């Protein structure tokens, strides 16, 4: 048995899979914020009991957690110190010096995780090429350790200039600190993320240090808990890049778990792509406060090493803590079911980026909220059923929704309530389509080559409309969208990325050294997965370089097999870069020298075999058996309400086909199928919607 557990803000989701039959069981318990491991253990206990499974039969527990992100957002990490090169302790505070909003005179600076008094300097200096300019003065390290002793420090981060080129000083400092401060965990930048960029590297290293002791305690508790329960297995954890790792690796680099939940969701939709043979998927994850989009190209989620956590201003880039960690490349905007609609100073509808919190929430929650939200609009437009929200567990108040929209939007703009609701719905869809569209463009790709896979509570409600605006034709709504992250943990392979940085122009590059470094990384990576009990024959290894033209600030990641470097062939390396560059920008820059900025090796275990989960075939009906009734839903093309059949997702069978307008309801969400679209149920129980051409 394999169990995936995802801790969310409200619920802890569980998915259990029997590899022999492919059968899946879901579970949900309330999250226990004071000690999240309690909810996890309780949930595992329940799902085992309910299904009569012996704890000893559990082979894998794969876990994702918001613990790391929350500790950073809520600033609840340990008291952390930073040790850095003499003269540079303020780099962490100065940041990049630009304002994340052009017109707001009242923006706040991002507060560093380490106060100035705990940022200490040591005498040393390494040059851009790794040469030691000033040798490490160990006495200055001893002095720093003495200064920190007795200051109630839980962790120390070390980030020296150019340490990504030459880690010798950082390593020695780590040894000295480990001896002098035995109760502290030590994070050094050359291990956490050895890439160029002193501010971002320091920020990442500090964040790793800041959460590490908390993470260690949590994993110890959880690990002991599952053993007490009779599951004699180590834990595996989901990283932000969609790969899982053994608990000991996770504990060394907890910062890599900062986006583990959303990464699970993306892996769930990537699995849909693999099962359905759809190579390119746009994962569209719309929840209560934000919407996220990620691209899965050729069945592999796109990766990035640029991430920002704990944004303090309208989800704007630049207003958070930058982290250079392997992540699934995802954009996030303030557009969710709870996003608040208002009339702005231009007399136009604006939705978000702020959202009504869970309490009182959207007006229709009937908890005293008066904000007109996206969910209120969706209810008024007939997309949601007041009696079927969360499987009927929560009754929605339609009159309250209408009142809020009337007061906040309709009256000020001289519109009817329905027109205003349609305006809210369209505005938020446009925002999402645009943000996702720019994301696709940045990668040099075309939206129309992708199928959308919506997850999250509000994803299926808005998916077809957003896909239409983006010129996409196919929407694949996976089964169990409400527990997608936990399910994604089961669908993800074990993997780990190793990176090294060092800037060198191709014509001056020591190809042999680069190859040797890559091979060394590969050896480390293989050892790591072997240590997790994986069969080496099943590993796949990918090697890549981040490259750019000299002087350019953006890098292009290109696959570079070591064999390419083997015969000292610079032209092949250049050609690989140019091919990658051309794919992104449609051209190359003749005569410009190119350089390698960093190189990485990702070693990946096999994808878990989830194929037997094929659902039982039905007769290929029109879904009549699943039809619960009909209701009026607003149709934008018609500009009026039209009658739509309402279907129970759990009653639909493989092979069923029906046409829009239609509504398919499941416990955690509702799929809105527009007029002119057709829906079919595929072999795996996914709902596949084909949109009519030329909808916007």
């Amino acid at each position, binding site marked *: 048995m394999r169990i995936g557990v995802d801790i969310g803000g409200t619920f802890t989701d569980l998915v259990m899979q029997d590899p022999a039959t492919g059968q899946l069981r879901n579970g949900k318990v309330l999250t226990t914020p004071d000690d999240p491991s309690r909810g996890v253990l309780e949930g595992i206990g329940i799902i085992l009991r309910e299904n009569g499974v012996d704890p000893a039969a559990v082979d894998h527990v794969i876990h994702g957690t918001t613990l790391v992100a929350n500790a950073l957002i809520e600033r609840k990490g340990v008291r952390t110190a930073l040790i850095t090169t003499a003269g*540079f302790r303020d*780099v962490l505070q100065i940041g990049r010096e630009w304002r994340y909003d052009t017109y707001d005179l009242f923006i706040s600076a991002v507060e560093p995780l380490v106060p100035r*008094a705990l940022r200490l300097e040591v005498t040393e200096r390494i040059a*851009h090429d790794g040469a030691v300019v000033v040798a490490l003065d160990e006495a200055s390290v001893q002095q720093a350790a003495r200064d920190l002793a007795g200051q109630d420090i839980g962790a120390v981060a070390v980030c020296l200039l150019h340490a990504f080129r030459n880690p010798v000083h950082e390593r020695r400092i780590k040894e000295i600190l480990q001896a002098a401060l035995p109760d502290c965990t030590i994070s050094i930048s050359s291990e956490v993320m050895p890439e160029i960029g*002193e501010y971002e590297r320091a920020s990442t290293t500090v964040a790793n240090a800041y959460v590490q002791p908390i993470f260690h305690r949590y994993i110890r508790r959880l690990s002991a808990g599952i053993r007490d329960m009779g599951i004699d297995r180590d834990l595996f954890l989901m990283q932000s890049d969609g790969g899982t790792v053994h608990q000991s690796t996770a504990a060394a680099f907890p910062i890599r778990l900062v986006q583990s939940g959303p990464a699970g969701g993306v892996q769930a939709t990537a699995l849909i792509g693999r099962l359905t043979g759809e190579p390119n998927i746009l994962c569209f994850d719309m929840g209560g406060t934000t919407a996220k989009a990620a691209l899965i190209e050729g069945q592999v989620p796109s990766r990035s090493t640029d991430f920002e956590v704990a944004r303090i201003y309208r989800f704007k880039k630049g207003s958070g803590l930058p982290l250079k960690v392997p992540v699934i490349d995802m954009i996030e905007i303030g557009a969710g079911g709870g996003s608040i609609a208002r009339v702005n100073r231009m007399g*136009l*509808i604006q939705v978000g980026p702020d959202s009504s919190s869970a309490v009182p929430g959207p007006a229709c929650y009937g908890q005293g909220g008066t904000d007109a939200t996206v969910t209120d609009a969706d209810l008024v437009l007939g997309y949601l059923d007041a009696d079927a929200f969360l499987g009927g567990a929560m009754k929605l108040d339609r009159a309250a929704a209408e009142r809020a929209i009337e007061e906040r939007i309709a009256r000020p703009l001289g519109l009817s309530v329905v027109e205003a609701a349609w305006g809210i719905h*369209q505005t938020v869809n446009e925002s999402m389509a*645009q943000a996702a569209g720019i994301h696709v463009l940045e990668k040099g790709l075309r939206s129309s080559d992708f199928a959308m896979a919506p997850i999250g509570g509000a994803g299926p409600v808005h998916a077809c409309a957003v896909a239409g605006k983006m010129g996409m034709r196919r929407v694949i709504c996976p089964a169990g969208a409400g527990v997608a992250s936990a399910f994604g943990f089961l669908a993800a392979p074990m993997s780990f990325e190793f990176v090294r940085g060092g800037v060198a122009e191709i014509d001056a590059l020591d190809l042999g050294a680069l190859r040797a470094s890559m091979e060394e990384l590969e050896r480390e990576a293989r050892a790591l997965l072997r240590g997790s009990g994986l069969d080496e024959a099943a590993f796949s290894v990918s090697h890549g370089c981040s490259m750019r033209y000299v002087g350019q600030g953006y890098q292009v990641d290109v696959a570079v097999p070591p064999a390419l470097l083997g015969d000292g062939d610079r032209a092949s390396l250049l050609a690989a870069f140019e091919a990658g560059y051309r794919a992104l920008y449609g051209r190359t820059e003749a005569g410009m020298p190119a350089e390698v900025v960093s190189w990485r090796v990702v070693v990946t275990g096999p994808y878990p075999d989830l194929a037997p989960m094929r659902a039982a075939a039905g007769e290929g009906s029109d879904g009549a058996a699943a039809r619960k009734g009909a209701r009026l839903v607003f149709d934008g093309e018609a500009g009026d309400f039209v009658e739509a059949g309402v279907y129970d997702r759990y009653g639909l069978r493989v092979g069923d086909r029906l046409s829009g307008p239609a509504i398919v309801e499941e416990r955690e969400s509702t799929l809105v199928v527009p007029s002119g679209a057709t829906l079919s149920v595929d072999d795996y129980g996914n709902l596949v919607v084909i949109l009519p051409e030329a909808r916007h």
Partner: protein
Amino acid sequence: MPSRLGPIQLGILWQRLTGLMDEVAQTFVRTSFSVVVRENWDLTCSFLDAEGRQFAQSSRSIPSFIGTMPRTLRAVLKRYPRETLEPGDVLISNDSWLGTGHLNDISMFQPVFRNGQLIGYLGGTFHTVDIGGAPRPDARDSYEEGLTIPVAKIKRRGEENEDVIAFIAANVREPEETLGDIRAQFAAYDIATERLLKLLDEEGIEDLTEVAEEILDRSERSMREMISAIPDGTFSDEVTADGFDHPLSIRCTIRKQGSELEVDYTGTADQIDRPVNSPLNFTFSYSVYALKCALDPTAPNNDGSLRPIRILAPEGCLLNPRRPAPVWGRHLSGHYLPFVIYRTLSQIIPGKIAAESGSPLWNVYFKGTDRRRRKFVRMFFMNGGHGARPTMDGPACLSFPSNVANTPIEEFENTTPLLVREKALIPDSGGAGKYRGGQGQRISFESVSDDPLTFVIRHERVKFPPGGLLGGSAGSCGVDRLNGAIIPSKTVQVMKRGDVVTFDTPGGGGMYPASERDPTALARDIDDGLVTPAAAASAYGAQPTDN
């Protein structure tokens, strides 16, 4: 007049147009060569309607470029009137008086046609590091400052105009970079044109006139409402710039009547024959930018919101110089404008403004040969402290009124034969106040080059510090040093191996009297080492403590 476009369709169209300009900017940035464009987003992409009115631009635009774009287009169309334009044409100019006020900013426009009708213009302005010439802090006229590209068709019907291209290539030091950026604009315009036409098809509208008018009218109404909320009257104040041989006074009178507002710089010093003069376009854009931040920060920035605002500067003064005044460092006076405006507005709307920041923006150009024996020119930006706000401290080292990011030290050292010795906040540099100004920074560069390196600086706030407001103290002055000795702040110097040049950027001014500062905030500053105990006693009147 009732609009055919309802508020919903208008809102969606507006969102889509802004999104489209973001796509153009993104496409351009990712394909551009100059570091300033890429790392600092020193660019703007706009859409202007058939009448040349700007109504949509990329979200992350340089404010000074937003203000100048429609004025530049107007000037360009004087040379090439609308009826002389054809699909695929691209117009270019960097004339300081027509463009953004100095030659390094290149502006380009491409007319957009639909069914044979011109429906608007795509416009872009970007900064290029080198534009030829020998710009020096002591240049006497604009001819020394580099190549002026007069208004020209750099593309005709989709074909590059080889003469113009060759002319530019022959006059700049890094033609690959400059031409690479120009061509990156071409590509971005082509994509934008295609997307724009598709958008019109999808929305089923003929052209953008009605959208533009609605957006402009609504922006105007919003600004008028905000202006109306201010008491009527005439208010004056001034700031003093370091200048060259003598200080330069910048005087501002704001006349506010009903829903209109006029900023008049009469009384400002005359233009001088040094490159600190700010052509009227630049004066205009920094003035309206400052007003917008204070009065109506959330509405879009376009021609409509500028209608109720007039900016006056007498011809021949520092803020409206006659040709051929040198203007290379026009920000050295232009960046003062938000501060003199806020100082004046502090008399009537103290809750909406900020104290003075440690700008005009500080930078340094290094020139020499790099480790691979190639010539290089690299610019390095270093921001001063931000002024205090009426409810909060000013952040340290934050770019205002420009918005320019720094270059990472590790990237800088990779491309230049220099070693950065220090980059640190300067204690006590933030002006004292109930709310403190942000700290400036100290940054030191050591030459590790066997060849002599030249550096060029032109720094302000060395004599007159960023002022505080309403009882707050001034921030610290900036200082330039070579091997420890103070050097002139506008100078060209040569460094040999081992020489160290050090820059202290100015700190921001404080707001309200220091005696009103929350003791815990002061204690935290002392704990952080950002206020020394001595300054706590002298500037804040704090009692020294034993520990």
